[in-house]
Each structure stands twice: as C-alpha cells, then as structure tokens.
C-alpha cells in the first residue's frame, strides 16, 4: 500500500531495510573477501571487511588439492547440456499441448504432470538401480537425463504450454497460408516469439543443475567426475577439518558465473525465476 511518508518515517524504513539486508548480503561479501585473506586473518575478530593484504594464494592451492578445473568444466558442461535439453524437450511438448488437439492430449498431459508430484529424492533408489544396470554409475548420464526429463523439465513444459496458450493463434495463420508444416510453425514462428518463457526456463534449469547435490553424491565416486557442489565439500585437511581459505576460494569461484549473470541480467533473472516459481 503506497502512502506518503514523513522524513522520519522514511529514515526508520531505510534503517530497517539496511538491517534486514545484512544476513542476506554479508555471507556473500564475507566469502569473497575472505577468499583473498591469508588463513590467519579469516579468523580475526572483529572480521575485517576488506583483506589487509589481499592475495590469490588460496586460489592457487584450490587447483593443487583437487582436479578443480576439471570439476568446474564438468559442472559447466552438464548445466549447459541440461539447459539446452530442457529447452528443446519442454518447448516441443509445451507447444504440442497448447496447439495441437491430438486424441488423448489431456490424458498424456496428466501423465506428464504426475512428475511434478514426484521429486527425484523419492525415486533415487530405483534410479540408482536403473543406471547401475545400464553401466552408468560414476558417469554423468544420470545428472543429464534425470533433470532433462524429470520434475524440473515437467515444470518447464507446464510453463511453455501456458506461454503458447497465451500466444494468439492468428500469428501462425500467415505461416500456415504459406504452407508451413507444424515443425516449421513451431521453429520459425512460435519459438522466436517465446523468448521470455525460454529465458525463464533456461535460468531455472541451469540453476537447478548447477546446485544439484544429492544426485552427484549418490552417482559419482571419482573426484575427476565430481561437479562443483560436491567438490566444494572435499577441501579438508589430514584431520578432516575444513581448509577454510581454500574452501572459500573454491566456493567463490563456484558462485562467480551465476552471480555475474545475475548482476548483468538482473531483471530477466528475477522475473524469470518468479515466473517459474521454483521450489524453496
């Protein structure tokens, strides 16, 4: 509710917002700055907000302790393939469910929607057994296939369908007059117009894959095949205690690409995710 406010009320409001923002912003700030501090300064109290003697020393050690470049590449390519795969699968299915009245489309849509009710945590035991019998344990296949076809992709299909339903059919008339087939109508007319929905699906499926943790922990055992979330937990010393400076450098690097995209494309990012209403 928007009402005019006095100067003092505004000040109180700003103060409240600043105070509330601390637990949201400080951890990230602290992660980035501490990764540049020498190990003893990380524990200093009061915590220094800026490294006294910034050094990239811990960043170098990340690559000594683990095949981090390989793990980084794994996360990147898996998230990229999952994103492209989800976009293709969900836009095709979403388009067909919105536009083509083939017999049984309602029943088939319901069959697919069931996937929304079944988080992959519920099916992890049989999934393990299936991938095991296909010889796909300790490979990246489960991390690619399950998100591209499972619950996240079902949500994406739902979003694409809603979008295509709202898109006026008349737009396709001209194309149909020109004798375009279904695939051409989809690829050349509908798809270029659906950029906002595709953007939302892309951001959401990339983030989902990037953050995936249970699946890599269950399916992967070789460090060279790990993805970032799993790799981040492995930086421990001989006694099992975390090596904080190395771990924070690795954590900072893992957060970097998404945070950069967030800063550049903030609006699309926020609205895209709000659009998908992903789980929290």
């Amino acid at each position: 509710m928007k009402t005019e406010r006095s100067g003092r009320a505004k000040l109180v409001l700003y103060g409240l917002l600043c105070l509330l923002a601390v637990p949201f912003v400080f951890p990230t700030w602290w992660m980035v700055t501490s990764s540049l501090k020498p190990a003893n300064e990380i524990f200093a109290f009061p915590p220094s907000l800026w490294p006294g003697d910034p050094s990239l020393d811990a960043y170098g050690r990340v690559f000594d302790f683990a095949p981090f470049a390989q793990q980084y590449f794994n996360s990147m390519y898996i998230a990229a393939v999952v994103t492209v795969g989800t976009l293709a699968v969900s836009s095709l299915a979403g388009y067909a469910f919105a536009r083509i009245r083939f017999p049984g489309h309602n029943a088939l849509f319901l069959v697919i929607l069931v996937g929304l009710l079944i988080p992959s945590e519920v099916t992890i035991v049989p999934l393990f057994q299936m991938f095991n019998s296909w010889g796909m344990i300790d490979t990246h296949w489960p991390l690619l296939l399950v998100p591209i076809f499972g619950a996240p992709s079902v949500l994406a299909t739902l979003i694409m369908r809603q979008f295509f339903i709202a898109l006026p059919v008349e737009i396709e008339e001209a194309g149909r007059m020109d004798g375009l087939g279904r695939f051409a109508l989809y690829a050349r007319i509908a798809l270029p117009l659906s950029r906002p929905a595709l953007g939302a699906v892309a951001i959401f499926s990339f983030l989902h894959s990037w953050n995936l943790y249970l699946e890599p922990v269950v399916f992967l055992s070789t460090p060279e095949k790990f993805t970032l979330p799993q790799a981040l937990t492995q930086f421990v010393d001989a006694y099992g205690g975390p090596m904080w400076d190395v771990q924070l450098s690795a954590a900072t690097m893992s957060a970097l690409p998404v945070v950069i995209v967030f800063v550049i494309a903030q609006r699309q990012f926020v609205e895209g995710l709000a659009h998908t209403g992903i789980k929290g």
Partner: protein
Amino acid sequence: MSRADAPTAETGRRTRRPGGGPRPRKGWTARRRDLLAGYLFVAPQLLGSVLFVLVPLALVFWYSFHEWNVLVGSFEFTGTANYERLAADPALPGVLAATATFSAGLVALNLSLALALAVLLNQKLRGTVVFRTLFFSPVAVTLVAWTIVWRFLLQDDGGVNGLLSAIGTDGPNWLRGETTAMIAVIVVQVLKNVGLNMVLFLAALQGVPHELYEASMLDGAGRWTRFRRITVPMISPTILLTSIITVVGSLQVFAQIDVLTGGGPGTSTTVLVYYLYQNAFQFHDFGYGATLSVLLFAIVLVLTVVQWQMRRKWVVHED
C-alpha cells in the same frame, strides 16, 4: 508439406470439432500429419517421464516389499516386512518430528518473512529496487557455497557469535546444540531462497487495485486492518501457490543438512530425506530405503492434496 496442401490443411483444422462430418481425403492426410506431429513433439517428454519418473515410482513400491541389501547381494520378496519394520523403527518418530519441525519452521519463517519484505518493498520509497536485489542475491549463490559460508559463520568462534559478543551476549555453539542446530538449518535455508517468494508476493501486492485501499481509508480502517481485510484476501492465490511450493521444497532439503550438520547432533536434524539417504546409500539397505521413499511420497502427496483442498476455504478468488 507443399503449397497446394495448405488450404486443405486449413480445412482439416476447422473441421476438427466433434461431429465435424466427413472430411475430404486430402484433408485427412494433412490432419493426420498434424496429429503425428503432435505425438512426435510430446514423445521425448512423455517417454522421458515414463522412464525416469513413472517406472522408478512403480519400482519404489515394488522394492519396498523386498529385503534388499546391496552389499550382501540379497534380494528377496518379504511382503510387508519392511512396513512392519517401519512401524517399529525406534528412530522413525525422531526423524518424523525433525521433518515436521524443519518443514513447519521453514514454511512459517519463509512465508512470513517473504510477505514482510514484500510489504516493505512495496512502499513509495526510492531505492527499493536496490533492496530487492540484495534480498534476492543469495538465490544466485551456489547452494553449497552459501551453506559452507554459514557453517563457518556459525562455528563457536565464528562471525555470528563474534557479533553477539560485540553486543554483550554469548552465543551458543550453534551447530552442536540440538535446538540451535535446527534453528540454524532453517534460517540458513530461508535466507537462501526467501527472495523468490518475496518477488512473487511483491508482484501480487502490486496487482491489488489501489481504489480498495482508498475506499477503506475513507471508512477509517487502520493499517493493520487494511492489511488483514484487503491485502491478505487479495493475494491469497499467491499465498496458496507459494505455500505449496515451499512445503514440497522443504521436504527435499538435503544438501544444507548434509553440509551444515550431517543430520546431527545426534539425530536432531535427520529429516526424512536424509534418513532415506543414510539407509539406502550409507547402510546399503535398498529395501528399507525404498520403503522410506514410499513414506516420503505419501507425505508429499497428502500435503499437496490437503493444501489444494484448502483453497476452497480461504482463497478468495482465482485468477
């Protein structure tokens, strides 16, 4: 499809309604081609859903009737033995209590904080976009990275207790106490994702017609009354949507618990997903793991259906 086919394709489309009468032969082929396209378009998603969602779901039920230890290599039909074991499992009441506490705490804190932040950001105030970005920013940070940082801040000599001692109180060793560990995992998870619900609420608040507030102000309604009588009913569809998403999401939380507490201290933060993981992948007991999966599925299903039913009661309007 050739150019000559186009008009018939059009006719085929128009006569698609039930009782449309016999169609010209050429129209049939074009229509058939269109229907075939429909099936081909949905095929990847449909086959994928069957293979990676529905078949595994059926298998979960099937496995739950078996004694199956992966290490020993045993696989034997044992009827309802796993379910009897579930009912008698001395750890289960604690696990369910932890799951209920975690989910209830997470949903309550997440939704109320999201709504409070959205109301604050919906004021006529410069710079709210900046604050929206700040509150949303943890969503962009890798989940495990966010959790690792909090594990550091929550140590006995970490940043949170440093801050508390600066204002003159001694903080507990957060991750070592049963209650405080539970509070910690809830708060860390809420801070990570509350920005999503906040944005949803903000969009809903901006859709509430201004005239409603003006009318009620003329009636002399106070700020709180206006919030309760106008805002909440008007955004109730969004409240329902976000609460369903948040409840189901809360039952899937695994990484944060694994990294922050490992289910401890004791079993105080061992929620159902974590217990399932331990049984199946640490104790290699797939049969009992599958039984716990069935329980998890049942809980997700019941909660979703119950909330969906509740919409009739308190959601004022839909779309």
